[in-house]
């Protein structure tokens, strides 16, 4: 005989047209509409030798070296919710250590329209730019502990800025999305400007190949202009401990970036949870010109600067067990900078190029390997090894990282 479970009792009685389940008790409370809160805890143990900067490139704001030994990485707090039936809002705070103090960085704080219709969406506020493939992803969802070399060279790490984004999704079975962004344009590689010099365009295409494979291709362009862009000076790097102060400022510059990206994913029967292979590659190219002003104590040199930079990475990730994933990545960047001296005051071109390392045109290459253990979808332990070649120089880096997600954890994009 059957047991009379509540479900059966219900089925036998006249409640076939089901009431909405679980009538809530109706207390009045102020916190029922709390936004979804997600906290990422990230920490590392890092070992490396020698310097890690990028000769040939003016360094971006986050180009400093990782701490040796134990350190906290990128703790990230994200709050998000629907504002009302028309808007969705999300804010991400990143906390990290800088010279002994904890710095808070507001990475994203944006609003987005919900169901605007016609395939259109508008995002405004501060957001990660959708140029490239990796740029719109938060750091905790990267497949390696660090950004690819080419992202470090072009954007400092990633490009986010204040402004407006318009997107249009085509009404086709093939995924086709077009987008444009208008932003302040002062985030690296931009700088102080008269306002809203940042302009981006992107197109993304994607689809499935049968049940096992999916793909996405993208192309993007970014342009900005600036009056002044200062970066970290390289003068304290490489070897000798020079205490004197040196500064490199780029003035009245223009930056143009073009990029293409491709991703292909394969999972048997489309069940990525059990097994998945991901191949991913991006190429970025940057043309920029400015007046390079270098000063060291009372001496200075001004030169017309013209830089052509490009770089790429290719990576493969393989999940061979629901808990284990491994990956390899190869990346390379190369700079070709030209300078024409306009004004020289106690420093000649040779000394300037030596101090800033902007004269270097040798490619920098980096090979990375990582192994990840995910106890659940919310916790991750990662071991990564980087090997870098630049001319005669060899650098090695080991990182053991934890990356854990607390609280509600929103969906990740493709």
């Amino acid at each position, binding site marked *: 005989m059957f047991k009379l479970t509540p479900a059966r009792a219900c089925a036998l009685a006249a409640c076939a047209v089901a009431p*909405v389940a679980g009538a809530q008790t109706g207390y009045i409370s102020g916190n029922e509409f709390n936004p979804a809160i997600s906290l990422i805890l990230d920490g590392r143990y890092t070992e490396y030798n020698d310097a890690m900067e990028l000769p040939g490139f003016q360094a971006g704001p986050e180009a400093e070296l990782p701490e040796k030994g134990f350190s906290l990485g990128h703790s990230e707090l994200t709050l998000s919710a629907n504002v009302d039936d028309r808007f969705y809002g999300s804010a991400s705070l990143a906390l990290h250590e800088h010279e002994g103090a904890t710095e808070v960085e507001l990475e994203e704080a944006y609003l987005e329209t919900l*169901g605007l219709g016609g395939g259109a969406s508008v995002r405004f506020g501060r957001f990660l730019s959708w140029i490239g493939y990796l740029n719109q992803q938060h750091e905790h969802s990267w497949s390696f502990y660090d950004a690819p070399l080419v992202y470090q060279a072009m954007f400092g790490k990633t490009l986010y800025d204040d402004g407006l984004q318009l997107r249009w999704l085509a009404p086709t*079975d093939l995924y086709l999305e077009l987008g444009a962004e208008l932003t302040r344009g002062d985030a690296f590689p931009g700088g102080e400007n008269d306002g809203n010099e940042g302009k981006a365009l992107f197109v993304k295409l994607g689809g499935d190949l049968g049940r096992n494979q999916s793909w996405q291709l993208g192309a993007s362009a970014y342009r900005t202009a600036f009056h002044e862009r200062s970066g970290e000076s390289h003068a304290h790097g490489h070897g000798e401990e020079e205490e004197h102060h040196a500064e490199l400022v780029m003035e009245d510059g223009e930056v143009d970036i073009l990029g293409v990206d491709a991703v292909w994913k394969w999972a048997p029967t489309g069940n990525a949870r059990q097994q998945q292979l991901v191949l991913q590659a991006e190429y970025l190219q940057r043309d920029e010109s400015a007046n390079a002003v270098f000063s060291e104590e009372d001496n200075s040199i001004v030169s017309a600067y013209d830089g052509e930079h490009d770089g790429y990475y290719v990576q493969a990730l393989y999940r061979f067990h629901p808990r284990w994933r491994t990956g390899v990545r190869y990346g390379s960047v190369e700079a070709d900078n030209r300078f024409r001296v306009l004004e020289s005051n106690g420093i000649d071109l040779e000394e300037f190029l030596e101090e800033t390392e902007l004269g270097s045109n040798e490619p920098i290459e980096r090979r990375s390997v990582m192994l990840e253990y995910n106890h659940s979808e919310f916790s991750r332990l990662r071991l990564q090894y980087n090997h870098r070649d630049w001319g005669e120089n060899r650098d090695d880096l080991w990182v053991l990282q934890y990356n854990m997600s607390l609280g509600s954890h929103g969906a990740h994009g493709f």
Partner: protein
Amino acid sequence: MRTLFLLLLTTLLPALAHGQVQVFACEPEWGALTNALAGDRAEVFVATTANQDPHHIEARPSLIAKMRRADLVVCTGAELEVGWLPLLIRRSGNPNVQTDQPGYFEAAMSVPRLNIPETLDRSHGDVHSAGNPHVHLDPHRLLSIARALAERLQQVDPPHQAHYQQRLDDFAQHWQRRIQHWEQQAQALSGLKVVVHHQDWLYLNHWLGLNQVATIEPRPGIPPSAADQKRLLRTLTDQPPDAILIAGYQNPQAARWLAERLQVPLVTLPYTVGGDSHSNGLSELFQRTLHLLLQTRKVAP
């Protein structure tokens, strides 16, 4: 130039070519149910197959593109698709399927759910605050969902209300007869002791009166380690279950290992429509599930 434009229009905008309701069904069972209730009034796209774990689907470009044109989204809900569905809906910019619209339908939320947790703590695994979402394997609940879904179809496509009512009535009549038939067949299954991989079978167990003695996952959504498996084997050795149940999308290794050592049958149930070659419709899904379970009764000593 004009022909080129027309060609472009017909290839780009197939949705406009006919007046069917475009349905985005998250799982095959809801695709099948929508087809049963809407017939040729709906064009149904099913986002996942029986071989995919519906908890872990990537918000792929192709799914975003499909969501863009949907008039009605039919999903399990109760947080089953929390890792991908909200993103698809947001990215689609589609006003019809936003969660406050008639075009957004969560099947599990229209029936009472079991195992609503009293505390929400991730150390208990990937638990759902709205209760166990795998409601479709109870045919009584499925019928309730069919009624709610038919109502929704009428809201989304008002000119054809009579059509949906007729089809619902037919479906309900047919389904009630099937339930009677199945319940007669299934009497032999009452009290069958089963070990399951994940809490996918809760509603099936309740319906058939199966006795679920253990889950292979130590906690919902956490894959078992070798130590977990050994511990489970120890506790089950004295009182082995009658069968071990898994779904096609689950990794069978742990279940197979356990079945071999306990010398009990391992039964891969279809779980949803399309789960095996005998389960191509809702009715066939239940028929096949019962058939496989009844077989274990016959071979059991």
